[in-house]
């Protein structure tokens, strides 16, 4: 496949933009070095300089609003037990440092892999005796963004062996499964076509180290599952539900593909 496309491209005399950028990036000469680990490239590398600058400056980064909101929620009691997250975990800057780099993660209580959003709602149900935050609610996004932000700069490091292995395999299958009326897979765009232009977009590797991400296109911050739903819709496929096993397993596979890339949350993307 790669050869077919590469051949077609060369025959047509096209040199993808992304290839040039990637070459620049490999030299590390333009400050992108830490966003490239081996052949893994964060979406940051593919982003426009203006967008990168917005992410880099906490005063300009619109995602920081969610970090601040999450910080408030962290210490605010909620639910029948009268506790807050802080009651059990203390200062998030220490207790939550590095935690998000391991998510999605196998959870023995439910016997499957869960993502950070689901872990948050599990604590709310068990410890706080509070209602779950609905998917894509301001609160769930704020808490997820706040917790992942405590790992900013640390390498993603999810486990895919042991009890996580069968979930990882399912996620991998989903990544390579063609779907929708356009009959494409995640790999079609984010592996085979990396660096090529799909209309106005440069296709990245679809890395997830920056999620939840503030997207200029959404004019808000959103979860990884919202992004995946958007990609499913681009393929004219029937998306899965928020929180479905299919998406959580896929999230695990995606996180593993990016193991070693630094957490950027909240990233800013087009």
């Amino acid at each position: 496949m790669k050869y077919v496309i590469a051949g077609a491209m060369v025959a047509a005399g096209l040199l993808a933009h992304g290839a040039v950028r990637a070459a620049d990036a490999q030299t590390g000469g333009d400050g992108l070095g830490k966003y490239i680990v081996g052949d893994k490239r964060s979406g940051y590398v593919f982003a426009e300089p203006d967008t990168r600058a917005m992410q880099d400056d906490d005063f300009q980064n619109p995602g920081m609003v969610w970090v601040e909101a999450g910080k408030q929620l962290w210490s605010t009691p909620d639910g029948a037990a009268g506790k807050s997250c802080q009651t059990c975990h203390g200062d998030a800057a220490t207790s939550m440092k590095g935690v998000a780099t391991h998510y999605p993660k196998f959870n023995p209580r439910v016997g499957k892999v869960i993502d950070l959003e689901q872990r948050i709602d599990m604590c709310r149900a068990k410890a706080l005796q509070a209602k779950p935050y609905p998917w894509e609610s301001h609160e769930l996004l704020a808490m997820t963004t706040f917790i992942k932000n405590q790992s900013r700069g640390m390498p993603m490091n999810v486990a895919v062996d042991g009890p996580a292995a069968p979930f990882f395999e399912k996620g991998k299958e989903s990544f390579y499964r063609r779907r929708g009326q356009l009959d494409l897979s995640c790999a079609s765009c984010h592996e085979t076509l990396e660096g090529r232009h799909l209309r106005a977009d440069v296709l990245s590797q679809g890395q997830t180290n920056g999620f939840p991400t503030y997207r200029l296109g959404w004019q808000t911050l959103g979860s990884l599952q919202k992004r995946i739903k958007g990609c499913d819709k681009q393929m004219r496929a029937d998306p899965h539900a928020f929180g479905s096993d299919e998406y959580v397993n896929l999230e695990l596979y995606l996180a593993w593909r990016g193991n070693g890339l630094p957490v950027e949350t909240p990233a800013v993307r087009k």
Partner: protein
Amino acid sequence: MSSPHRGQRVAVVALAFALAAPIAAAHADPLVHYDVVDKAIPQSLTGVPGDPANGRKLVIDRARGNCLACHEMPIPEQDFQGTIGPDLKGVADRLTEGQLRLRVVDAKAITPDSVMPAFYRTDGLYRVADKLAGKPIFSAQEVEDVVAYLETLK
């Protein structure tokens, strides 16, 4: 196999038919038959000449052909054309009408692992969005319109 099992299986099959029948009726195969000869479809799908102006609209329309997502074409008013497939300028000098037709109908009949979608095919697809299920992207006449447009790219 013991007879109670067999009885059960008959019941399951009957149920499956009962469920499948209305669905099959709603998505009755709408595709016209065509013959592939030497990696081409030499005959028109409809016998009615294609309308290149409508074909041009279809290749631009993001909800329909959206060919510009992947290809550059000599359509100067459209910014941001894709670089995934070959530039289609001059494609009619390289390919015959029949080759163009098969490429639009089902590119995977030529290159099985192509990323180019089949625009006139409904089988072998997985999890198609509900409102599109069972429908090809183009009607037979729309395929002819797009081929007629591609034929102008000399």
